[in-house]
């Protein structure tokens, strides 16, 4: 673990009003108007809390997909089987709903466009990298960020079209993409992305994160230059 975490902004509990929502089978994209918003750094996350009428609450953390300059806060949530919060957001939430939110949070898994980086994301693990790519585009730092996005299918990979348009390398493991036969990323596909990067970011499920960090090690990335954000559980 090297490098000093930047002094990242943090925000208190406030409310977010749902302005836009769209969903696919397993994903729901929320765009919220956050009261008294503290601008985040790309890579930070928010906590979203649901409250029942008997004051029972359930809260979960979600990475931010939007650029800090976006007037709305964008979250992309994967609907998990039996997911108490993700299921509600996917099935029930509608425009005009008001949620408790707290953020931004986290100062380690952030990038401000200062150093060249490589990012490897699996599934909804690409979300913080979408924020970084949007940020890079706005400040003209596209040459400093390279993204490898891994999904099962194009439909299941969040922001697949946007990632491809932004020049990300996309590896699909369950279907072919253009000329590429379905497979996880190969070492020789990662090598050009890694060249020149000072830091690496890995985001995804526990299993994906351990796979991706091992892969980065095999193409010569030092373990202490890798920052990891993982989610999900082991039994």
């Amino acid at each position, binding site marked *: 673990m090297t490098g000093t975490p930047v002094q990242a902004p943090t925000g208190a509990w406030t409310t977010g009003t749902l302005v836009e929502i769209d969903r696919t089978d397993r994903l729901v994209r929320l765009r919220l108007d956050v009261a008294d918003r503290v601008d985040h750094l790309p890579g930070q996350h928010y906590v979203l809390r649901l409250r029942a009428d*008997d004051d*029972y609450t359930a809260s979960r953390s979600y990475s931010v997909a939007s650029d800090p300059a976006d007037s709305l806060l964008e979250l992309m949530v994967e609907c998990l089987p039996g997911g108490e919060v993700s299921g509600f957001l996917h099935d029930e939430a509608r425009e005009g709903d008001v949620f408790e939110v*707290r953020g931004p949070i986290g100062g*380690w898994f952030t990038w401000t466009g200062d150093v060249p980086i490589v990012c490897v994301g699996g599934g909804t693990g690409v979300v913080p990298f979408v924020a970084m790519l949007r940020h890079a585009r706005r400040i003209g730092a596209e040459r400093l960020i390279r993204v490898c996005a891994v999904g099962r299918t194009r439909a299941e990979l969040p922001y697949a079209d946007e990632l491809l348009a932004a020049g990300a390398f996309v590896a699909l493991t369950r279907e072919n993409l253009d000329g590429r036969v379905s497979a996880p990323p190969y070492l020789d596909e990662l090598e050009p992305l890694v060249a020149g990067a000072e830091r690496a970011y890995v985001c995804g499920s526990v299993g994906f994160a351990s796979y991706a960090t091992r892969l980065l090690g095999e193409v010569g990335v030092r373990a202490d230059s890798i920052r990891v954000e993982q989610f999900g559980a*082991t039994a």
Partner: protein
Amino acid sequence: MPITRGFSGRPRRGRPSQDSTQRLPPGQYDTGAEWPTLTAEVTPHLVADEWTMTVDGLVDNPHTWSWRDLHALPGSTYFGDIHCVTTWSKLDTTFSGISVDTLLDIARPRPEAAHVMAHSTTGYTTNLPLDDVRGGRAWLVWEYDGRPLPPEHGGPVRLLVPHLYFWKSAKWITRLELMERDRPGFWEQNGYHDRGDPWLEQRYQGDP
């Protein structure tokens, strides 16, 4: 704070027992048989025989123990619940190792020592009040449910401070540094609370 339209949450009465809901601190849910992992760094794969544990800083007798040395000390087991700041709690866990008191008794903290910094082999740090790691409230553990602690959960040895949020229970611990003044550790520099009492919901800096 607003009530979420249409949200009722998981049924409260249908939970395993009334007892388990009362054991959950505010804002936490019972993760059941699952054990989520959350780390900021790459999981190190450490060889237990090469690993050492040091207690130093404001102590009269700074000391380093090998894996074998620690196993020669009287053992201690924690049976109870753990709580992660990301809102999961895991009930009825069993961790075995030794009490931190055993190490402190040997290292002998100086009177001015009031805080500790736990250091991991990865460079991860977390700060705690000294009183939170003594008096039978903290352990160094190498077994979970009677089996060796897996690397992703901090094996071979992690700190266990179950009455605080679990980021205080540093994985891959290798050193406890006793200090006079508090100093923020890794997550604490990043906005997380210096103490982290789940019953007071001390999640982030600024939480009362």
